[in-house]
């Protein structure tokens, strides 16, 4: 296939519709960035929930070695654990539960405060210092007094933590921000789609003579649509690049700032950025190519 015409048309098309392309790019950049931010918040919420348990959970701390709590003269025994488990399993307020070992608790601490603190000759804490825990998922977050008091007095239980009051607002805020970001992104995506559609309509109109002749002399539909598709791809790639930059800046400045101030929450990092960037990288071209494919079929019908 001779692509000389296609490339010259691509350049011409980009220049001819420059303002429309800029409008598409700007709208796309903002919407893609918001989608990315929404995805970052989503991952942040997941991470925080993994760490603290979600709002439906309470945590039962079992007695550990040298427990500061006077009800814990000795670390919890296997027999006590079995008894506690039986109580938990029978309780109707409990949807699900799982045990977490001291080793896992230590890993979580390492994640928050850095591994150096826990290694070497004189570590700040070892796995034995960390309490074993039972993470209980409730049927209903409001119904927790029963299980809480049932477990509280048992031998081998140090304390019952209900983190909902502290973690709840953080999780709620993160979830809200995700919803706002994705909601706004949704509206802007719609605007971007309409702009793309309008751009194609204008471009098809500007090229109607060429297109008419191409159809008559038997140019393939793909060949006729190719300049349009390439234009769409170029605007998408520019938008994705800019949105990726904006997301990186968001992670570096906004999240970085939060992370240095609120250290008790595990914050997202570059791994999560790449997930969001990949999603944006796929979404951008889809958002421009899909309407282009649909509309070129309509406007350039053979």
């Amino acid at each position, binding site marked *: *296939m*001779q692509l*000389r*015409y296609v490339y010259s048309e691509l350049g011409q098309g980009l220049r001819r519709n420059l303002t429309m392309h800029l409008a598409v790019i700007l709208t796309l950049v903002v919407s893609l960035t918001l989608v990315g931010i929404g995805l970052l918040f989503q991952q942040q919420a997941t991470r925080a929930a993994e760490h603290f348990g979600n709002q439906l959970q309470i945590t039962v701390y079992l007695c550990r070695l040298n427990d500061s709590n006077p009800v814990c003269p000795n670390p919890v025994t296997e027999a006590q654990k079995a008894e506690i488990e039986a109580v938990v399993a029978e309780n109707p307020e409990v949807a699900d539960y799982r045990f977490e070992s001291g080793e896992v608790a230590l890993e979580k601490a390492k994640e928050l405060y850095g591994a150096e603190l826990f290694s070497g000759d004189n570590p700040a804490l070892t796995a034995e210092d960390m309490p074993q825990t039972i993470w209980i998922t409730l049927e209903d977050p409001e119904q927790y007094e029963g299980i809480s008091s049932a477990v509280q007095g048992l031998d081998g239980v140090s304390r019952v933590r209900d983190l909902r009051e502290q973690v709840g607002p953080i999780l709620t805020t993160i979830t809200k921000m995700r919803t706002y970001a994705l909601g706004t992104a949704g509206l802007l995506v719609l605007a971007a789609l309409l702009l793309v559609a309008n751009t194609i309509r204008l471009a098809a109109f500007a090229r109607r*003579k*060429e297109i*008419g*002749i*191409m*159809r*008559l*002399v*038997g*140019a*393939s*539909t793909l*060949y*006729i649509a190719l300049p349009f598709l390439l234009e769409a791809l170029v605007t998408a790639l520019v938008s994705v690049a800019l949105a990726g930059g904006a997301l990186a800046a968001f992670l570096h400045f906004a999240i970085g700032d939060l992370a240095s101030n609120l250290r008790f929450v595990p914050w997202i990092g570059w791994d999560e950025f790449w997930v969001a960037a990949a999603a944006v990288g796929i979404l951008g071209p889809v958002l421009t190519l899909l309407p282009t494919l649909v509309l070129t079929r309509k406007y350039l019908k*053979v």
Partner: protein
Amino acid sequence: MIRFEKVTKTYPGHPHPALDNVSVDVEKGEFVFLVGSSGSGKSTFLRLVLREYRPTQGRVYVAGKEINRLAGWKVPRLRRDIGTVFQDFRLLPNKTVTENVAFALQVIGKSRKEIKDVVPETLELVGLSGKGDRMPDELSGGEQQRVAVARAFVNRPMILIADEPTGNLDPTTSVGIMKLLDRINRTGTTVVMATHDAGIVDQMRKRVIELENGHVVRDQAQGVYGHQN
């Protein structure tokens, strides 16, 4: 080369069919005039040949293909076998004569070398050698139509369709275009020409198919424009 079998074409929203039970057979290498008043169905006939539409009823065969069954993606290939010329020339104003003719080959993927060989040859055939670098607006109407004919013929199609090619031209110039179409016809290309130009039809003495309200009212081997009693 072109066969209509009991073809009816009704447009949505129009109660009367544009073509009504039309059966026509055009052999390879024939020259056919399609005459009739405006709205008689000439353009619909040509558009069915080009597979811009499908017939509502009946079958249309073009260059051995039944266009009713022809898949959409195969239509471009069909059109490469058909050259088309219009009353309004339809040249690209920002391209030279050579570029306009070459465009038809470029967009169907012909090689640069082939284009370089074939385009000047075709321009010579239509009598425009030496004018390849002109822009369309520097040419007379007749010359512009020659460019359009060159573009339609440059890919050596089996069929040439001309929709009122002399409609915008004065009689003398029209004769030139008709001579050109005749020459193309002599190379074996089937020519179907819709026209209102009685003088030309009478002069050429070719087959005449007359349409009226979507019906074929006359199909005459060496006809003239008006009715012969």
